[in-house]
């Protein structure tokens, strides 16, 4: 026998106006296990709560039902009330006789009958309530940032400034990412390096930031607050502790290869830093191209190194560290336009991409900032820009808009006009999208003052004719085919997810969309979180973004991570799933259904027929479980149960409302 008290609220006339609350209380008093029932004007008021507290003492109540408004409104209020009366707050149920009854059913008789039913339901459930406890776990106050581009750097700086240690894992030899390759930034035409490199230096010198460049995340175990992360530090062939970054080795290295950083437009050495301001400014050996590694001969870099830092024997190193939060900022790739036969499958040297163009106009780039076309190094007079290459193209590319191309193409056209007197730019576009501060104005200037000719239409064919490139399009505004003989064609290729994004998502246990961009927990309300607690997103790995958006999102992700790390203990809700291990058969169907990866298999040992036997059962990580209960339905044997919403409780409710 339970001793339940039922408290029916008038809510002024909100309830009492259309429900006979006295009758509800009178009927409730007859319910099994109900020993006390009363009604009161405002149950949630101080005196109302006192009525409950007094009754708990006087009638020795061990369960409480309040019939009033929606539990979404006052459940926490009454739970606190029970707590202050010395009861476990979970021995409580609410009957919603206001929103679900008095406000919607004007017929007093019917409303009263329904109210009685709703109270009966709550009373039937409450006797099956069990005292529940919130659980808490400790948190490792340290964050891991995957990716050292502008987003990753910003996240790291923000978290580090808040006082928590941060590790940046960057797979390239230097941090800086895509922004380091860019020449100027729209719409202000700031020099990209001028604003990025100080941040890179800040990051490298910050006492709370550790940079692991030329490294990759190998394995992620654990859960929010307590991730165990294995990082592979790839062999640089250079001892970081000895190297001073003096540059002698790469000056003397005899092997020249195409520079990835310069988009194959320039050369680098086999021992190299990607660019002069690299952080850390210490080289790596490209073992694929290094003569020493290929043939065993050479070894010049080792000979010339004044500190003896070159180490050909160095091996990859695996380290495992604990982190409380992870921010993913792995950035994007450029769409490979070699699927476009009509644009020459990438075989015309003077059909280049936006990122190539960035290197061409960059003062420290392969042409020292002179726009020269790759085929014959002539300075182009006519430059055609084609937008939406790979973007908004379901047939050959991606269905989405890459968001940045309209602006960077405008920037490119502006720079062409500035750098090549007498030149002419043509920009083929479908729409010009400039939703950013100062963006539209920039575009207008480009078209009006910098004489970029905008032509609305997609280009159908680009072909070489002599030393010119013929670009065939339609000016769809007049409806006539147009043809331009250009010296150079710049394609605004789409921003696409990194090709290994899916692998990383699986390692991290986060989801990704059809285009391989990581999926945020909620597109509107939780834009920087993932479904995996403790893993956050920043920058273009979540979708195409320009620099301001990436930085803004980085700040948001950092603040989420800081919010998590600033707690010592993380409290999780008491409404979590629970496994009856004795009955669990370990089929693990529940595991695949849990959206939070809160269920895992564990081995238990039990005595069977006189000997000890091991057996697999499901185990719920209470700090990851969010209490949705999806697993409980998947479990055929019913040995998974959601505390607070158990099968028995819900069945009791069903039976009560069907009486």
């Amino acid at each position, binding site marked *: 026998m339970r001793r339940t008290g039922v408290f029916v609220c008038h809510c002024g006339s909100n309830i009492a106006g259309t429900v006979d609350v006295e009758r509800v209380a009178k009927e409730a008093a007859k319910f099994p296990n109900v020993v006390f029932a009363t009604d009161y004007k405002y149950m949630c008021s101080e005196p109302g709560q006192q009525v409950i507290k007094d009754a708990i003492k006087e009638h020795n109540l061990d369960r409480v039902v309040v019939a009033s408004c929606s539990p979404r409104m006052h459940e926490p209020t009454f739970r606190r009330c029970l707590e202050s009366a010395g009861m476990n707050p979970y021995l409580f149920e609410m009957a919603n006789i206001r929103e679900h009854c008095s406000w919607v059913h004007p017929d007093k008789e019917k409303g009263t009958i329904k109210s009685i039913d709703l109270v009966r339901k709550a009373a039937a459930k409450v006797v099956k309530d069990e005292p529940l406890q919130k659980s808490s776990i400790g948190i490792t106050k340290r964050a891991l940032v995957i990716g050292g581009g502008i987003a990753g750097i910003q996240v790291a700086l923000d978290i580090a400034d808040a006082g928590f240690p941060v590790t940046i894992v960057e797979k390239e030899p230097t941090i800086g990412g895509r922004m380091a390759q860019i020449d100027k930034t729209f719409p202000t035409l700031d020099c990209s390096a001028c604003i990025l490199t100080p941040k890179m230096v800040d990051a490298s010198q910050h006492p709370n930031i550790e940079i692991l460049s030329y490294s990759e995340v190998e394995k992620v175990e654990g859960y929010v607050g307590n991730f165990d992360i294995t990082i592979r530090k790839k062999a640089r062939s250079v001892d970081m502790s000895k190297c001073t970054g003096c540059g002698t080795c790469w000056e003397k290295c005899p092997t020249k290869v195409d520079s990835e950083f310069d988009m194959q437009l320039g050369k680098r050495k086999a021992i190299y830093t990607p660019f002069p301001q690299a952080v850390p400014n210490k080289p790596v050996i490209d073992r694929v191209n290094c003569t020493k590694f290929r043939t065993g001969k050479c070894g010049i870099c080792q000979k010339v190194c004044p500190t003896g830092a070159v180490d050909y024997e160095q091996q990859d190193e695996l380290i495992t560290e604990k982190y409380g939060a992870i921010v993913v900022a792995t950035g994007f790739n450029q769409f490979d336009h070699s699927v476009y036969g009509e644009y020459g499958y990438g075989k015309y040297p003077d059909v280049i991409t936006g990122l190539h163009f960035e290197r061409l106009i960059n003062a420290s780039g392969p042409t020292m900032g002179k726009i020269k076309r790759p085929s014959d190094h002539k300075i182009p007079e006519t430059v055609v820009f084609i937008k939406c290459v790979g973007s908004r193209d379901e047939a050959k590319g991606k269905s989405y808009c890459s968001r940045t191309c309209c602006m960077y193409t405008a920037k490119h056209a502006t720079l062409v006009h500035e750098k090549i007197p007498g030149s002419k730019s043509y920009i083929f576009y479908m729409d010009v999208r400039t939703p950013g501060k100062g963006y539209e104005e920039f575009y207008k200037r480009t078209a009006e003052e910098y004489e970029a000719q905008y032509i609305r239409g997609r280009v159908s064919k680009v072909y070489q004719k002599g030393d010119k490139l013929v670009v065939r399009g339609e000016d769809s505004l007049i409806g006539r085919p147009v043809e331009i003989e250009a010296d150079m064609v710049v394609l605004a290729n789409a921003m696409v997810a990194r090709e290994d994004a899916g692998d990383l998502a699986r390692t991290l246990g986060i989801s990704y969309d059809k285009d391989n961009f990581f999926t945020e927990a909620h597109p509107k309300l939780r834009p920087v979180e993932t479904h995996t607690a403790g893993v956050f997103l920043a920058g273009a790995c979540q979708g195409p973004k320009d620099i301001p958006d990436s930085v803004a999102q980085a700040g948001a992700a950092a603040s989420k991570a800081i919010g998590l790390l600033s707690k010592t203990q993380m409290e999780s809700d008491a409404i979590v799933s629970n496994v009856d291990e004795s*009955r*669990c*058969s*370990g*089929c*693990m*169907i529940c595991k*695949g*259904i849990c959206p939070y990866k809160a269920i895992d*298999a564990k081995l238990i040992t039990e005595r*069977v*027929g006189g*000997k000890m*036997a091991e*057996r*697999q059962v499901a185990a719920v990580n209470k700090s990851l479980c969010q209490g949705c209960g999806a697993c409980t339905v*998947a479990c*055929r*044997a*019913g*040995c998974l149960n959601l505390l607070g919403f158990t*099968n*028995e409780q819900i*069945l009791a409710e069903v039976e009560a409302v069907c009486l």
Partner: protein
Amino acid sequence: MITEKMRAAAKELLEKGEVETVIGWEKGTFWYNSTPAFISKPEQADRLVFDEFCANNLAKYLLDYRNADGKIAVFVKGCDARAVNRLLQDNQVKREKVYLIGIPCPGMKEAPKTGAAQDTASLPLLAKCQSCATPNPVIYDQLLGDPVPAREVPNRFAGVEALEAKGADEKYERWGKLFSECIRCYACRNVCPACNCRECAFDANGLNWLGKQNNLQENQMFNITRAMHVAGRCIECGECERVCPMGLPLMDINRKIIKDLNELFGSYDAGLNLEDRPPLGHYKLDDPEKFM
């Protein structure tokens, strides 16, 4: 002759100590009874037989050997092999702990009505075998005999379709009559390789999933829930229907679910391979939802 081969295989496995028990079939009470046999000594191997009456799906017995020290060998027909896959998918059996001896299955026969001796060739195929599309084992370590050609299988959903076409009351009356006959002996559940919970929800103390009264409503609850629990997991071995002492057409329910799953979420045959995930264990963003 398969019988000879199976005896030899069992003998060899036991003699070499590769397995501790071999699960097969032996002759039972009458000439038309073949019944599960558990052999643990080489000399017992001669009890084994394979004939037209080895209808029992042996895979389920693997559950009894979950804690065995050594390996268990089991003979598997097409349906038994799918059952083994089912058990593997449900993590009830470890692949390395079982040795599967596949037997291409020519289809099992009905026992004669009178019991009088007669030519087995003249006996009809068991209902469960008439619509079998996987007579050959889909997983095995060793195969006895050559795979049999796939039989011409009639539309296995014909019965379901005919029922679907009936009126609501007619359907309810039919099922009501049938479920009223159910004696809740649970043979259907206990023989089913998809019913492999350690303890069935219906047997659990105090869970209140199912009343013990034998009446139409509780029997309905039992039968619908049983069907829902094997939804997407039923390997269509037909054992439930075969062993039902009351002769209830349980496959009409299982097949309805299979048909719907195929129609709604793409075709799926449980137990055919280990990698495919059962349809109720995952979802697609563009699943149909015309009922919403």
